[in-house]
């Protein structure tokens, strides 16, 4: 039978797993958060309404907040030194670039 399920079911470490969960929740609650924030952040509606909206947004799950997402390295789960364009940490990037496996990447010399 051809396997339709991904073979590797384990992320690199638990921190990466938690980051994945946060991303999923953030995607789910993105619309709601946007709308409640639209009510909060304007000068037209009465302040009482805005306070109620504040309480509502605080009641949402904490991991639904997009600011909790941290761009880790995709292969090693390194939290620092990650280049956004390649989603890789500097060490992995260097490794691949030296083995000529990064398209269009060359050692700088000038």
């Amino acid at each position, binding site marked *: *039978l051809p396997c339709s399920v991904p073979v590797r079911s384990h992320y690199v470490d638990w921190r990466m797993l938690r980051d994945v969960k946060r991303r999923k929740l953030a995607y789910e609650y993105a*619309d709601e958060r946007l*709308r409640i924030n*639209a*009510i909060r952040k*304007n000068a*037209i*509606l*009465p302040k*009482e*309404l805005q306070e*109620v909206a504040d309480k509502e947004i605080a009641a949402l799950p904490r991991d639904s907040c997009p600011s909790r997402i941290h761009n880790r390295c995709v292969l090693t789960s390194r939290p620092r030194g990650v280049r956004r364009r390649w989603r890789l940490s500097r060490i992995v990037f260097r490794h691949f670039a030296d083995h000529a496996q990064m398209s269009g990447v060359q050692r700088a010399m000038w």
Partner: protein
Amino acid sequence: VRSAEKDTSAAPKDNTTAEESKRQESTAGAPKQKLLDLIGNMKVEVSYRKKLQLLKASEKKKQATNQLEGPDSEGHQRSTEDIQRGKPLNPDLVKAASAVASSLPLDKKQTESELLAQLRRHEETTDKQKKGETVNIRNVISEMTVKRESPAQRGARISGRISLELDEDGERIRPDRFSPKSFDSRRSLKVGKRLNIFTKASTEPEHKLKTVSSPTIWDLEFAKEIAAITAQPPRNGFEEMIQWTKEGILWEFPIDNEIGMEEDAEFHEHIFLERHLEGFPKEGPIRHFMELVICGLSKNPYLTVKQKIEHIEWFEKYFEEKKEFLQEM
């Protein structure tokens, strides 16, 4: 010669045509001879098969003449052959055969009889084919197909070799042993067309649909195999580009900017969203707020019309829930 003919055109036409024809005959006598010679030479193109047939026909005629001790006349021969075949030929064909025989510079009677015999044979073969008597091997082989047995049938065959059945005496039935039971068991009961004597005629198209809609894994694998074998690598750059376009790697030219943005909605449904504001109060801060929301949505090219309507409806629901709270204020 032609210039002389043209000069005589001054005279009345009938006379000139007669004179011209006479002159053509006299002057064209040499080419006509040449034509006849050509036709006579052309007869050499007859194939060996036809020659054999002619020989056989002539032999048969000789036998017929030898058997019959009557007068040797063409009509008598023809009548005997007719009786032998038992079918009259098309009179036009007969006339044509006689004309051809007369044109050829050979023995007219013999050629005529040979041609007629050949025609008769042609008719016989066509009649036979119409009836379906002759066995054309080519047709038979073309209709035959290689039988692919499913694993179920294969398993049945293997299991059929070793039978665990027990006879009345307690001995195992060997498949080789002749017994009426084994014959029945080999022929399954559900094979073949049903007579529908005891049950109503079941809807056959349903069965057909069932067999079609459940492709087994083996069928899928077979299909994959065929696809892999028939997919030859591209011979040139054009075929490579065609392959990429089919896969979706290469865009289709001329580039259509609206690929993937398939929406039935027109631009006015995106921009004029005030019609959705009917559930809101006409005055007050909420209306002001919603008008701003609509202004923002109308400028948003990324959302679909459905998403925009959902956005507005969410706000409607939210403010409905907060109505009591707002009226307290």
